[in-house]
């Protein structure tokens, strides 16, 4: 016969054993169910290909492109595009399409070894410019609405300054323009050796290294023990919630390698201590970027808790392009675009784009 004290201990151990087993069973269930492999949630056709770039055009239920003025999403080339088309019912791109726009997404793909020679000019005057041309040709419109996210916002801003006649409206999401504002991924990359990245002899910066810069910014996520503990705690959530977590993990953890020349050039031009966007001396190839040419309406959105792109560095666009509507939302770098409260950003963006019509 067990003493009452012993029995209580055994009961507690038994309860712990059951909880742990339930979590392991749930983990197996999640790991054996199909994951979200980054193909995007909304049906789309590839309308243009160049190198690793795929230009996607979203389709409605009948398989036709959505009707309305064209919108081109430019995500960051160092991450997967599908953060803006994450899940059915949780897709920024689909929300914009359903608001009455013909939506295109530039998927930069995963650079190969030879793409380490890609520079800013190759992206802005090459991939982005030709994507815009293709969008204009397909839509039959003279101008496109651009939505750039993070580093994709930098590319969009540079493009809009160099080719203002082809841009109807510009939306910049968590896009740093003031490189001297401390914090954020540029500063971490600076501390971790980006300064030593060679423009003349570039390497393809491994995905794990790019990821380590982001991990340095998120307390708790930079240690394996911390990540395992977080996951273990989350295994008590519902399977639906875990599937969402898995989809997000498939984006967060699946960073792509980065062209060393692009990073070196961006660091040398826009990084801490250089800050050539703010000083008005930025160039793309031989062309000087004149932000005074950005005369189209601009919406810039920063996130209050953004550890990757500090909000002050994002809001500084107001000094460069004074007519910019600057908006700061509660949430983090990813949360405002694809989190549970992202609908506020989606609707504000749709309203901003819709006000161009008529």
């Amino acid at each position: 016969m067990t003493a009452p004290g012993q029995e209580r201990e055994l009961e507690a151990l038994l309860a712990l054993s059951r909880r742990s087993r339930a979590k392991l069973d749930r983990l197996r269930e999640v790991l054996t169910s199909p994951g979200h492999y980054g193909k995007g949630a909304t049906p789309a056709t590839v309308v243009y290909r160049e190198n690793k770039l795929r230009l996607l055009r979203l389709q409605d239920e009948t398989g036709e492109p959505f009707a309305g003025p064209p919108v081109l999403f430019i995500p960051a080339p160092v991450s997967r595009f599908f953060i803006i088309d994450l899940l059915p019912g949780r897709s920024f791109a689909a929300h914009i399409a359903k608001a009455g726009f013909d939506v295109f997404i530039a998927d930069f793909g995963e650079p190969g070894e030879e793409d380490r020679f890609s520079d800013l000019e190759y992206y802005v005057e090459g991939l982005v410019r030709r994507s815009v041309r293709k969008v204009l040709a397909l839509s039959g419109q003279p101008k496109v609405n651009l939505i750039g996210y993070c580093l994709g916002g930098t590319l969009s801003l540079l493009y809009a300054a160099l080719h203002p006649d082809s841009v109807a409206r510009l939306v910049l999401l968590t896009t740093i323009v003031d490189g001297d504002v401390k914090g954020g991924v540029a500063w971490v990359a600076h501390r971790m050796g980006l300064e030593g990245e060679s423009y003349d002899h570039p390497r393809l910066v491994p995905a794990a290294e790019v990821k380590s810069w982001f991990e340095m910014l998120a307390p708790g996520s930079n240690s394996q023990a911390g990540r395992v503990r977080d996951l273990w705690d989350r295994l008590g959530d519902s399977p639906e919630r875990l599937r969402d977590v898995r989809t997000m993990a498939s984006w967060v953890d699946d960073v792509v390698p980065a062209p060393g020349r692009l990073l070196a050039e961006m660091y040398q031009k826009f990084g801490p201590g250089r800050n050539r966007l703010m000083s008005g001396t930025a160039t793309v190839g031989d062309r000087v970027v004149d932000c005074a040419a950005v005369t189209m309406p601009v919406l810039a959105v920063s996130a209050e808790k953004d550890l990757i792109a500090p909000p002050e560095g994002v809001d500084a666009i107001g000094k460069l392009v004074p007519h910019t509507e600057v908006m700061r939302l509660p949430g983090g770098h990813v949360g405002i675009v694809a989190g549970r409260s992202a609908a506020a950003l989606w609707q504000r963006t749709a309203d901003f784009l819709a006000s161009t019509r008529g």
Partner: protein
Amino acid sequence: MAEPNPENGPTIVERWLEDQQQWQRTVLAYLDAMTKNDDFLVHLGNAMRGSLLAGKPYPTAPSPAGETSAPAAAPDDRIDKVLFALHQLEGQLADVQLTLEEIRGGRARSAAAPAIALKRARARVKKAAAKTPAARASKARTPSKARKRKGRA
């Protein structure tokens, strides 16, 4: 040993034994998943790193600078430079193609524009002519004349 209590169900020991059996089932289910699903081990490895990343292994941490045992030989860039130059050419060709499409589209539009304008102008003239009194009278006469001609024939 705890005595069975018919009112409260199985004893703590019985429940322990049952829990052990459940653990065996859990372990067997994991083994089963490993044999049936090729990706399972990759996914499990990711989970052991604290990630639910699907479809590929979690990116491994880069080795800290200076830890490499031997200095790496300078890579031969030539092939990659040629490949990248080909990608740049691919872009330039795409530009040419887009320009040709624009020219073709512009010609089609400019060719279509006068034709459409002519068609519309003809339609407007026809409509206006139909509204004149002479035209209305002629229209009114036409059926009777036709009937007469038909009768003579």
